[in-house]
């Protein structure tokens, strides 16, 4: 029987890794992820989790150790945030290219300088193209559920890719929320033991991450691109099966009161729940607005996004990261690109907000929507929200 427990979301992530029976954790503590690795270290030290905990000296080493552990066939977990994710950067590519299904929780944090330990999505967006599957979550239950799904998806023989589960630093990582914990037997049924098909094994030697001259490198990248795109089907199947067992359903693009709405707001991450309250309020006032939330960031759900926004006149993309010197934020650039060749599409405007932990309230989202509508009518395409002039 599942049990509902009030728990800090960071600790629930540790509990999810425990229920997934991870073999190896290699992690370096960094705000706002610290409680995740503290809890995992505690679980291992107390003998509650039979895993090797590697206290590495940096995030570069953390991901390198995870990569090695995964390569011998160990179920491997780590967590990081902000600068830590950037220090891992080159090894993130290697882990994905070598198809090693490490699972990582990322407590999203703004990047320096100036130093900020608070949340936004600039860390995620900088690792967008590393080849990892990337899933965004909105509340504690979603984080917990998607840690389990991440192992199931990444370790599927048709996929074999690492997976990041994103949660907003502080806004989500440090909340105490009611979370339904399934029994160990239910998790074991959903998540069979990990069995990597070509592990490092002295009895059957293989070479991983070998040298690839120009005559073969393009072939390796095409294989990787096709594999990551094809992972979407497996992700959908996993979420379907998860729903049939646990009763909670996840989709690559999720809509909220968007039926026939002429104005749509698009959000990503935990701010979506605040935005929902704003949508409820505006709907009650008779305004024609709805919400679209992007859950699956990589592989990008192009078809689902097109379907979700095709009937709107205005699409306001609200996001928590800048693409400095670019035309729009990273999410908006991607959304516009997905819609550009469509015959029927909304006008897309981009509002950046919630940078470096700045809160956006319900009233804030009402203002975002009003500004977005004005921008669309005045041909303004881009704005940073809530900046003192």
């Amino acid at each position, binding site marked *: 029987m599942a049990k509902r427990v009030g728990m800090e979301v960071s600790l629930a992530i540790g509990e999810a890794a425990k229920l997934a029976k991870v073999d190896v954790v290699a992690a370096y503590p960094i705000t706002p992820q610290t409680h995740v690795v503290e809890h995992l270290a505690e679980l291992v030290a107390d003998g509650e989790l039979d895993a090797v905990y590697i206290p590495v000296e940096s995030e570069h080493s953390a991901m390198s150790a995870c990569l090695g552990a995964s390569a011998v066939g160990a179920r491997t977990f780590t967590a990081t945030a902000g600068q830590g994710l950037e220090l891992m950067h080159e090894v993130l590519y290697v882990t994905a290219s070598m198809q090693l299904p490490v699972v990582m929780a990322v407590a999203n944090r703004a990047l320096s300088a100036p130093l900020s330990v608070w949340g936004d999505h600039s860390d995620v967006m900088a690792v967008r193209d590393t080849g990892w599957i990337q899933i965004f979550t909105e509340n504690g239950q979603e984080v917990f559920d998607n840690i389990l799904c991440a192992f199931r998806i990444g370790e599927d023989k048709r996929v074999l890719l690492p997976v990041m589960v994103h949660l907003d630093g502080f806004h989500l990582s440090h909340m105490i929320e009611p979370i339904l914990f399934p029994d160990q037997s239910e998790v074991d049924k959903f998540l069979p033991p990990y069995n990597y*098909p*070509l592990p490092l094994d002295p009895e059957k030697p293989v070479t991983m*991450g070998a040298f690839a001259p120009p*005559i073969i490198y*393009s*072939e390796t990248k095409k*294989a990787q691109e096709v594999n990551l795109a094809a992972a979407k089907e497996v992700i959908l199947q996993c979420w379907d099966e998860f729903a049939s067992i646990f009763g909670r359903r996840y989709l690559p693009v999720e809509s909220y009161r968007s039926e026939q709405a002429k104005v749509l707001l698009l959000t990503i991450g935990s701010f979506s729940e605040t935005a929902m309250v704003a949508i409820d309020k505006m709907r009650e006032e008779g305004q024609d607005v709805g919400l679209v939330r992007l859950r699956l960031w990589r592989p990008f759900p192009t078809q689902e996004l097109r379907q979700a926004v095709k009937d709107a006149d205005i699409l306001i993309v609200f996001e928590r990261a800048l693409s400095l010197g670019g035309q729009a934020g990273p999410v908006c650039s991607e959304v516009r690109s997905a819609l550009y060749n469509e015959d029927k599409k909304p006008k897309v405007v981009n509002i950046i907000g919630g940078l470096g932990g700045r809160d956006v309230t319900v009233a804030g989202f009402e203002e975002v929507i009003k500004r977005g509508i004005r921008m669309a009518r005045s041909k303004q395409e881009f704005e940073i929200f809530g900046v003192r002039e």
Partner: protein
Amino acid sequence: MAFKNESEVTWKDLEIGSIVVEPGSADQYETGGWRSQRPVYDNTKCNKCGLCYIYCPEGCIEQQEDGYFEPNLFYCKGCGICAHECPKDVITIVEEEG
């Protein structure tokens, strides 16, 4: 050759993560293709000391049955270290032609 020629390998032929499953495949790699010059031995001066064999960074110089040494040009990159180290000036480095 035990391996498919690289120029014939399609993206669908690759193992997961482009893992190489046959051990020792590096010996199929013709590093001699990088060479722009080659060592030429004048064995009338050679005392068979073997310093060229020891210093060769590619490990491609082999001792023949008669005791003299010969580079394997499939692997020799033409770096010239053998000629530099030879105490008897046996080895001359000449430009590859064509």
